[in-house]
């Protein structure tokens, strides 16, 4: 079926056909025809953000918490350039989002017109793919193709740049079904490689599952199969920051997060294992530490839908390209058909070793005195909110790592954080995107005061759309992670790492019309958190915490997994030496 309509109408029609129900955006000259169409329909709800970066992060939060495509709509020039950070963030964390940008009319492109920027040029390296549509007849097809590319294979951000004259002109609408694309990434894994992995699993004495965000992206089936696999084999499992929740934190085989600020038992197990099964993770430098010393005695298998992730950083013995759910399904089939074998005796000894590491209790802290420890604040938040239908977003820094350590996730899509890019200012808009998708759920943004200030304007959005997001700010009046590195690496010279002239967060909350809560006494904390949870509306919670607390455990730069600094009485002098100092 083909139909004639204006480009602007096509945009709305294509989004409706793709099942989009929410668009986060900000109008401007070059997208006015699209905004005019949005005004005249009821299928799609538009959420007016306060800054284009907020629109993209909100779309990310929406996408990550639903498993669906997130959509943002911004104008040309500054609208598009403000979206760049969000696009890069989504690229590094493989979040499926579609960003629609307005562009100056085709006949003005290249003339340095008002609010003109080379949007496809600027965003080419920070999108999975992008398009400039110069003909209205191509517009609907391009949007359908963009939605396909964003969600197929390894998900990622896509951008469609639409000149204003293309929005005004009338063309033929192409339906979703009529779209043709050659882009279809491989989803089935090679059965020979899968069998090789099964054989390795049958004999391994010290096996370990190392899972990542790919499991979340693969969908619910992947999570179910992973849990079945772990239960059936009794192998221990750890996860990256991005993969938290795929295996429940309360599960028996859970070792906690691994990596630079990962748990002692998880990192030790990574170092000492003899079979590492990487499922949807990418050997990020936050995970591997120094590569020469990375898990030196293990056979390594890597399941990933992106062939370029394999052997990029770490050479593996058993590469399997495919979608996690498809591969795990075949893996389980092969393993069962070969008699469900594991080296039970070896694995049992391996657990004894792991339990010795666990007994160190690397997250132990002591809450004494009248100052709240950030670890204590998050432990209490966990205790008081874990029974709720809860979604957590974070900003970036120490609070983010503590949140990953002290909050438990039972399911995927419940944890939205900027992992790869480390974007301060991600959490507040992301919490808005999450709350838009889950109106009745408890959405908490765990923040540091410095990160939080980066996109605090989005409190206006939360108020306008009555989104009761809880901004839980661990306020140490410092750029905590920067300060920690300056302490460990730069002779305690705290260059520009304190938050001077902070606002009064309670008054700030009131200025927005939200509720402000301040808490500085550990004895008041529980009541204050309960007040935050039960308040029907957005809350800014200013939790004043210990100013110079360091985030441990920590694998210092240039060190191996078995060379961690632990908390409580850690010897931090000369923690980072030599070449490690040049690493970030």
């Amino acid at each position, binding site marked *: 079926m083909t139909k004639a309509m204006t480009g602007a109408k096509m945009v709305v029609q294509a989004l409706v056909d793709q099942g989009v129900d929410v668009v986060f955006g900000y109008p401007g000259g070059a997208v006015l025809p699209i905004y005019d169409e949005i005004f005249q329909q009821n299928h799609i709800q538009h959420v007016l953000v306060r800054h284009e970066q907020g629109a993209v992060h909100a779309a990310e939060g929406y996408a990550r918490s639903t498993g669906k495509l997130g959509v943002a709509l911004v104008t040309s020039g500054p609208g598009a350039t403000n979206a760049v950070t969000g696009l890069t963030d989504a690229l590094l964390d493989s979040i499926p989002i579609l960003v629609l940008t307005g562009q100056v009319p085709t006949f003005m492109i290249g003339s340095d017109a008002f609010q003109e920027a080379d949007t*496809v040029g600027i965003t080419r390296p920070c999108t999975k*793919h992008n398009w400039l549509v110069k003909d209205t007849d191509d517009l609907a097809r391009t949007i359908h193709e963009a939605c396909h590319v964003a969600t197929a294979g390894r998900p990622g951000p896509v951008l469609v740049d639409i000149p204003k004259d293309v929005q005004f002109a009338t063309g033929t609408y192409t339906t979703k079904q009529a779209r043709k694309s050659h882009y279809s990434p491989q989803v089935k894994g090679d059965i020979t490689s899968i069998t090789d992995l099964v054989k390795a699993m049958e004999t391994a004495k010290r096996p370990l599952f190392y899972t990542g965000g790919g499991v979340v992206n693969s969908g619910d089936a992947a999570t179910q199969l992973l849990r079945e696999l772990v239960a059936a084999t009794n192998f221990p499992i750890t996860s990256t920051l991005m993969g938290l929740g795929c295996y429940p934190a309360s599960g028996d085989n859970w070792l906690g997060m691994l990596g630079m600020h990962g748990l002692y038992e998880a990192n030790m197990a990574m170092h000492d294992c003899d079979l590492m099964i990487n499922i949807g993770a990418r050997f990020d*430098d936050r995970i591997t530490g120094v590569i020469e010393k990375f898990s030196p005695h293990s056979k390594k298998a890597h399941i990933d839908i992106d062939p*370029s992730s394999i052997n990029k950083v*770490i*050479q593996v013995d058993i590469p399997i390209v495919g979608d996690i759910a498809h591969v795990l399904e075949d893996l389980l089939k092969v393993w069962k058909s070969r008699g469900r074998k594991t080296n039970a005796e070896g694995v049992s000894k391996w657990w004894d070793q792991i339990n010795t590491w666990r007994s160190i209790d690397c997250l132990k802290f002591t809450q004494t005195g009248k100052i709240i420890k950030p670890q204590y604040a998050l432990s209490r938040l966990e205790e008081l909110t874990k029974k709720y239908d809860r979604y957590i977003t974070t900003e970036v820094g120490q609070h983010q790592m503590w949140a990953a350590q002290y909050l438990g996730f039972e399911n995927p899509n419940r944890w939205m954080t900027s992992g790869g890019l480390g974007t301060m200012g991600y959490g507040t808009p992301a919490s808005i995107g999450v709350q838009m998708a889950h109106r009745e759920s408890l959405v908490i943004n765990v923040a540091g005061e410095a990160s939080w200030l980066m996109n605090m304007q989005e409190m206006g959005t939360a108020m306008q759309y009555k989104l009761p997001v809880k901004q839980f700010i661990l306020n140490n009046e410092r750029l905590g992670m920067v300060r920690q590195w300056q302490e460990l690496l730069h002779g305690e010279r705290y260059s520009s790492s304190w938050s001077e002239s902070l606002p009064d967060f309670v008054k700030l909350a009131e200025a927005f019309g939200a509720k402000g809560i301040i808490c500085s006494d550990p004895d008041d904390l529980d009541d204050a958190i309960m007040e935050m949870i039960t308040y029907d509306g957005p809350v800014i919670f200013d939790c004043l915490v210990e100013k110079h607390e360091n985030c441990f455990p920590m694998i210092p730069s240039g060190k191996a997994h078995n060379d961690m600094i632990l908390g409580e009485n850690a010897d931090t002098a000369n923690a980072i*030496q*030599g*070449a490690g100092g040049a690493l*970030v």
Partner: protein
Amino acid sequence: MSALNIKKGSTSHSAYNLKAGYEDTVERHTLAILVENEPGTLARVIGLFAGRGYNIESLTVAETDHHGHLSRITIVTSGTPQVIEQIKAQLGRIVPVHKVNDLTVEGPSVERELALFKVAGKGDARIEAVRLADIFRANVVDSTLESFVFEVVGTSEKIDAFGELMRPLGLTEVVRTGIAALSRGT
């Protein structure tokens, strides 16, 4: 030990690109990349090389299938085996890329390059230039009383050699197309 004294195999400017001690032999590979002929595709391919720090020694591109809307890019690049594999995987990930072939490893192939040489001179040098051009089976495509433009087709080595010979004979300008390559057989 200086903080910036990073081990061999690492890049000096970033912690994100630390290479383990894999084989260090740098190999030269010719890649044939079939792409959709749409705006920005070449920029994507080149941007990938620039952004990830890979080398381009030669690059040619033109539409080869008008109906199918396909162009063929031939890139000569160099790197360790691991880097070459990574380049191919990264190229394969670009949405409008249909196919990536490594002509260096996928059986025998032929490589040709075309070059134009402008040589200015009089007297013996001029005669010698024409004589050498004849040996190289170069065509004269333009001539004045004081100059020739020679057209040479062949391997890059042949073109290098011709250029060396022309240098003392009054070589003033050179242009090369870069390598075009095809696999041998069917």
